[in-house]
């Protein structure tokens, strides 16, 4: 009897709720540390990013205007779907170099983080809204509103927990996102897209690209329809580039240094507020 041949997975991009290959046709050969597995990862291009931006902008209005309760349930649903796919993430995380125990921890924490932000999606507005006691006969209130489309460079060293810790607060707050996955640990970022795909997250709300940071960071930070640029890492040159390009259209700059995302202090409603604007409305009181 001949040995059964495995079906290997093709890793593609995640744009507008679909899984296209990169339009550029380029690939990056990814090899695990034991050199037992070779995967071809899409080397995303500027054009892929621009396509993702179109999708993210298109999805932005309706995602923002969904009820907070609905967004909360969708975030919870992502957690549910991740729970059901543990085995797949175990396999990929260990292939990417984690021990079994570490991989288990990372999956647990990623699910918990999604549930944490699911719970915030319909509460941060209450914590950060105010009625302001103005000295005029007016009713005056301030509410947070999503900034719009966030372009993000994901944490490099943790491909699942880091990715989830960035995406969850951004979309819980009603933004849409285009995120560049970890360059060195890309596998479960794309698999996470499959989780999103089955979690009622509308097309375009989350878009995930793979590719080289050094190539794409220029495009992520200079695109004129991006409202906020989020950068994870400590590369001084990259940070300066991001901050300089942000000036082109006054993007909000959000930065996270390299950190251990598993610590509880790295989840916070203040992370949601980083991609929120402040809107104040006045109306006269009278007859």
């Amino acid at each position: 009897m001949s040995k059964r041949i495995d079906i290997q997975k093709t890793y593609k991009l995640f744009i507008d709720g679909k899984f296209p290959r990169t339009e550029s046709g380029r690939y990056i050969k990814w090899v695990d540390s034991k050199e037992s597995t070779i995967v071809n990862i899409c080397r995303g291009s500027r054009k892929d990013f621009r396509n993702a931006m179109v999708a993210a902008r298109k999805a932005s209005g309706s995602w923002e205007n969904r009820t907070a309760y609905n967004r909360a349930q969708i975030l919870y649903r992502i957690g549910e779907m991740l729970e059901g796919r543990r085995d797949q993430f175990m396999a990929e995380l260990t292939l990417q170099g984690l021990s079994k125990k570490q991989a288990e921890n990372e999956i647990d924490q990623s699910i918990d983080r999604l549930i944490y932000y699911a719970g915030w999606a319909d509460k941060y507005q209450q914590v950060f809204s105010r009625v302001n006691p103005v000295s005029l006969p007016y009713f005056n209130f301030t509410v947070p509103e999503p900034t719009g489309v966030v372009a993000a460079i994901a944490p490099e060293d943790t491909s699942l927990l880091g990715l989830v810790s960035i995406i969850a607060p951004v979309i819980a707050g009603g933004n849409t996102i285009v995120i560049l996955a970890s360059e060195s640990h890309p596998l479960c970022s794309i698999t996470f897209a499959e989780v999103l795909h089955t979690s009622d997250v509308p097309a375009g709300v989350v878009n995930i690209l793979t590719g080289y940071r050094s190539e794409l960071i220029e495009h992520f930070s200079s695109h004129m329809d991006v409202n906020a640029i989020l950068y994870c890492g400590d590369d001084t040159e990259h940070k300066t580039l991001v901050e300089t390009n942000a000036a082109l259209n006054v993007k909000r700059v959000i930065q996270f240094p390299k950190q251990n995302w598993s610590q509880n202090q790295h989840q916070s409603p203040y992370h949601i507020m980083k991609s929120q604007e402040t809107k104040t409305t006045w109306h006269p009181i009278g007859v």
Partner: protein
Amino acid sequence: MSKTIKWEYSPAPEGTGHIELKKQYELFIDGKFVPPKSGKYFKTINPSNEKTISKVAEADQSDVNHAVASAKKAYDKTWSKMLPKERGKYIFRIARLLQERAREFSVIETMDGGKPIRESRDVDIPLASAHFFYHAGWADKLEYAFPGRQAKPVGVAGQIIPWNFPLLMASWKLAPALATGNTVVLKPAETTPLTAMKLAEIIQEADLPPGVVNIVTGAGETGKSLVNHPDVNKIAFTGSTEVGKYIMKAVAGSGKKYTLELGGKAANIIFEDAAIDQAVEGIIDAIFFNQGHVCCAGSRLYVQEGVADEVISKLRKRMETLIVGDPLDKNTDIGAINSKMQLKKIKSYVKLGSEEGGSIYQSSCPLPKKGFWHAPTIFTDVSQSNRIVQEEIFGPVLAIQTFRTVDEVIAKANNSPYGLSGGVWTDKGSKIFKVTRDIRAGVIWANTFNKFDPASPFGGYKESGVGSEGGIEGLSGYVNLV
């Protein structure tokens, strides 16, 4: 009964005999008035008659270095060590002293900047002291502003303010910075430095520890030295989007925090079901308040088709009654344009508006011969792509368009790189909530326009800025949360 009565107002000028102005103002550094190292001074003039009011020191790099060093020393040695409640009491003192001298400040503000005394007396100066009073109380209550986090001051704040609301902008910047425990180097605008220098006298009177507030006068170069100084930890800027972008690039990679209040091109939307007479009054407030030198001015008017003729005809009539002239006269509605340069810019836009095909209407008021003046101006027959619809003019010039549906007007309102403010006029509550939600801007006035308060956050979306000033949100630009 229908006989038209022509109302003439007798002149009612505010007296200037009670104000104290020096012939020459020095820099305010380390609690003392010190001459600039270069020995250079520049004139500040009254834009309504072009007469020189005073001379003001021009700070160069070495003066800015001196100011930043004294702010840093004051932060390390005094201000950051002081009990927050004591810090608050100093700020309360400034508020009180300003209230006591409000009349003097109003007159000087009007002389130096050209705005009507009615506005400096009723808006600028009272709001400036209110800002100090409001923020003073926050000094020892910051743990309630940021639940779950500790708010730490940033250090030395470099603050650069514009010429349209000189003292008010100084208070918007100083009050939250001081309340949260920072020390400051403030640079007023070169055409309107006087009330800031008078404020320095009050700060001295209030016995604020030396170096906590330093004021350096000068133009763009002075501001540049401040932005690029390595010991400045935070930049707060109000001014043009162009300079705002320069600042973002200049501080890139430096780790400096920044808040920016930049330009605007606000949509003011009049629906058919609005109270039309009130709306017309609102249009006047939105675009002609402070000669239109307002970043949040309602400079794009959108009128629903069914009432367009009525609104525009009433607007023209109302424009005819606006009194343009001596800013010190208590009856004056529209004062002088702030500077020759600004007048030139406004005139070039008005010329451009006609060249682009717009129909112009200007009120027929006589304009004084001396000084810088511009008649209230509106354009009809313009479209979204016209430059006078897209670009900030910062003068009494309004571009008017019509619309049919809610979705259409929201799309038009948001079709701008700016997002500072907006206005909505309708008597239907549900429409107010829909439109105020959908306009992408930081401050929305419904059935009113151009209202300000220290408790009310003010800030822009998109290219109108980063961060807010006022309210709890305004504190966050001056703290690091740990």
